[in-house]
C-alpha cells in the first residue's frame, strides 16, 4: 500500500516509456524567480518539440521531467535529488547562483551531467567540477568587458557603480572595479541595494552628488528599471550600463524612456545572424499567448542547453560518463552571438563571447560605438 503511494507519486510527469530519453529541467517555476523560470521552461519546451518532430534522439523520444525549486536554495537541493532519483539522463537548467551553488553539489555527488543555463557566479565553475557545465559567460567575462567598454570605447572619466548586494551583484561589482583599477581608473561612488528594495532615493542622491558620466548597474529585475526611472526623476542623466541582468526586454517595458541608450552585455541578439532572427520569430510566435510573455533573451540559453545535450546523447547514448566526456570535448557555435569556436575550459566553463547591445526605442540594438 505504502509502496503504491510512493511509486504513484514518483510516476508523475510525462508518462515516460522505458525507451524514452529523459531530460531533467530544473528552475524556479514558483517563488520570486518564477518569471525567469517560465522563460527557461519555454526554451526547453521549444527545443524538445523541435528535436522530437525531427525524429528524436536516434529514433528515441526526448521527454522532459520538470523540477520546480521554488527559487529557494534548500528546495533546489531536493529538486535536483528528485531528478537523480527519476533516473533522468541529463539535467538542463538552473536559475540563480544561490540555487545552482546548492543543487550542483547533488549533481556532482550523483554523477549527473548538468548543463547550467541561468546562473553566472564565477564560483559555479571551478577545477573541482566534473559533472557541472555552464554554457553562459560568467560575471567575470561581463564585468571585464564592461570596464573596457566604459574606459576605452566610451571614454568615461567619472564612473559610479550601483549593485544588488546579492552574490550576483557583489561578484560583478568586485571584478568590475578590479578591472577599472588595471585601467588606472577608480569609481567616483559605489552604492548597493537589497533585491527587495523599491526606493533608491538614498543611493541615487549620493550618485548625483558624485556627478558621474557613466553608471555601472549590476542587478536584475525589478530593481533595475526602478533605478533607471528614479535616476531620471532625480535629474541624473549619465548613461547606464551593466551585465546581462539588464538584457531583458521587460526592462524596456518597465522603463520605456529612462532605459533609452542603456548598454548591456547579452547572451543573444537576433540581428547578429539570420538564424537568430528566424529563431526569435518562431519562438515569439509559439509563446505569443502564454501567461509569461515571450522573452527571447531569457529563453535562448535553455534552448541552446537542450540542443547541446541532444548533440551528445545522439553521439554517445545515455551512459553518463560518456555524455560527460562528450560535453567536455564539445565544439560548436551558437546563433545570435559573435562567431567563435565554442568549447569548455578545464573548469567546465564554456568559452563564449557576449554581445553588447543598447536600448533603442522599444528594443535592443547591437551596440555600435560612435565614430
Amino acid at each position: 500500500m505504502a509502496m503504491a503511494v510512493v511509486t504513484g507519486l514518483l510516476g508523475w510527469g510525462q508518462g515516460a516509456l522505458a525507451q524514452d530519453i529523459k531530460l531533467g529541467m530544473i528552475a524556479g517555476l514558483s517563488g520570486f524567480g518564477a518569471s525567469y523560470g517560465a522563460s527557461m521552461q519555454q526554451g526547453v519546451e521549444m527545443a524538445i518539440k523541435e528535436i522530437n518532430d525531427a525524429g528524436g534522439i536516434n529514433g528515441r523520444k526526448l521527454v522532459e521531467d520538470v523540477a520546480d525549486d521554488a527559487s529557494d536554495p534548500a528546495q533546489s537541493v531536493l529538486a535536483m535529488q528528485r531528478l537523480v532519483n527519476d533516473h533522468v539522463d541529463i539535467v538542463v537548467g538552473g536559475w540563480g547562483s544561490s540555487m545552482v551553488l546548492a543543487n550542483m553539489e547533488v549533481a556532482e555527488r550523483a554523477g549527473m551531467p548538468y548543463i547550467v543555463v541561468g546562473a553566472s557566479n564565477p564560483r559555479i565553475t571551478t577545477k573541482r567540477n566534473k559533472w557541472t557545465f555552464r554554457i553562459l559567460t560568467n560575471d567575470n567575462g561581463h564585468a571585464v568587458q564592461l570596464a573596457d567598454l566604459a574606459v576605452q570605447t566610451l571614454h568615461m572619466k567619472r564612473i559610479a557603480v550601483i549593485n544588488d548586494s546579492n552574490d550576483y551583484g557583489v561578484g560583478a561589482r568586485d571584478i568590475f572595479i578590479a578591472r577599472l583599477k588595471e585601467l588606472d581608473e577608480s569609481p567616483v561612488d559605489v552604492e548597493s541595494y537589497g533585491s527587495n528594495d523599491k526606493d533608491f532615493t538614498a543611493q541615487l542622491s549620493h550618485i548625483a552628488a558624485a556627478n558621474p558620466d557613466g553608471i555601472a548597474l549590476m542587478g536584475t529585475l525589478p530593481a533595475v528599471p526602478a533605478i533607471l526611472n528614479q535616476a531620471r526623476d532625480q535629474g541624473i542623466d549619465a548613461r547606464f550600463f551593466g551585465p546581462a541582468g539588464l538584457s531583458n526586454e521587460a526592462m524596456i517595458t518597465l522603463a520605456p524612456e529612462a532605459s533609452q541608450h542603456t548598454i548591456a552585455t547579452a547572451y543573444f541578439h537576433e540581428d547578429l545572424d539570420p538564424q537568430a532572427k528566424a529563431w526569435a520569430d518562431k519562438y515569439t510566435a509559439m509563446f505569443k499567448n502564454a501567461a509569461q510573455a515571450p522573452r527571447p533573451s531569457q529563453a535562448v540559453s535553455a534552448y541552446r542547453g537542450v540542443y547541446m545535450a541532444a548533440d551528445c546523447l545522439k553521439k554517445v547514448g545515455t551512459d553518463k560518463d560518456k555524455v560527460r566526456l562528450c560535453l567536455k570535448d564539445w565544439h560548436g557555435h551558437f546563433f545570435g552571438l559573435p562567431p567563435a569556436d565554442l568549447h569548455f575550459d578545464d573548469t567546465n566553463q564554456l568559452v563564449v563571447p557576449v554581445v553588447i547591445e543598447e536600448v533603442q526605442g522599444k528594443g535592443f540594438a547591437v551596440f555600435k560605438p560612435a565614430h
Partner: protein
Amino acid sequence: MIRLLPFVVAALLPLVANDYLLEIGSFVAIQSISVIGLGYLTGFAGRISLAQGGLYGIGAYTAALLVTGAHCPPLLALPAAILAAVLVGTLLGSPAIRLSGLYFVMSTIGLQQIIWIVLMHWSSLTNGPMGVREIPPLSVAGFALASPERFYWACVVFAAGSFFLARRVVASRFGLFLRAVSDDELSAATSGVRVVRTKVLALALSSAWAGAAGFLHAFFLRFVHPDMFTLDLSVVQLTMAMFGGYRSLDGMMIATLILGSASEYLRPFGQFRLVVYGGILLLTMMLAPRGILPALAGLRRRR
C-alpha cells in the same frame, strides 16, 4: 494511535523509499526539531515567535563556519551551534519577553530581520552573499554519514531524541510553570511562579532546539546561504507549530510531516502548488479550528 504516525512513517520509510524520499524525510525530521522548540513558546508560553528561522540560521552558520574555517570536528560544532543560538536568542529576545503577545511578535520579527541582515552583510565573518560551501559530510568518530540513508537515520535519531526530551521538559515542574504563565500570568505570579525567569528559560530552550536543527541543516545541504534563513522560514515553522493543535507535541510532529512534505505530494499542481498549500492551511483552520489531531481523532470516533 494517530500520534504514532510520524514514528511509523519514519521507521518504514527506508524500506520503501529511494534516496530522494529519504532526503525529504531528513528535511522533515530537521524541521520537526526546530518546530518542537518553537512549541515551548507558542504552545506552552503563549508567545508567538517569528525569529525561529533566524536562530536556526545562527546554528547552521556556526556549524558551517566552524567545520570549514576552523576544521572543527562536526560533533564538537553541535554544542557550539546550540550555544550560539541560545546566546543570540536570549540576549536579544529576553528584553522583549515581558511584552504582551503582539509586541513580542513584533520584536521577534525585528530579531529575525536583524539576523538575516547581519548574515548577508557581515561578509568578513559569514562570507556574505556567497554563502559557505564545501561543508564536509557529518561524521561521528571518523564514521562519515555521507549516504542519504545514513544521514536520514541520524536525523531521525536527533528528531526522536528532541521529541522525547521535550516531552520530559513539558511534563516537568518547569512545564507546569509554563502552562501556568500562559494561562494566567497574574495568578501564576501570586502562586509563586517566577514569571520572567520561566519565560526567559522557554526562550532559551526554544533557541537551543533551533540551533540543533540548524546544525543538522548545515550538513544536510552542505551549503548555507543567508536567503535560506529569512522570515519566510520563520513563518513556515510557525505554521507547522500551530497547525497541529494547541499544546500538542504530537500535533506538531504530524503538522511538520504533513506540511514539510507538501512540496512533494503537491507536485502535480505545478505552478499552483503554493496556492494549494495556502488553501490547505486556510481550510484546515476553518474546518478544524481545534487542530488536526483532535479532528482526526474525532473522525475515528465517528466511524
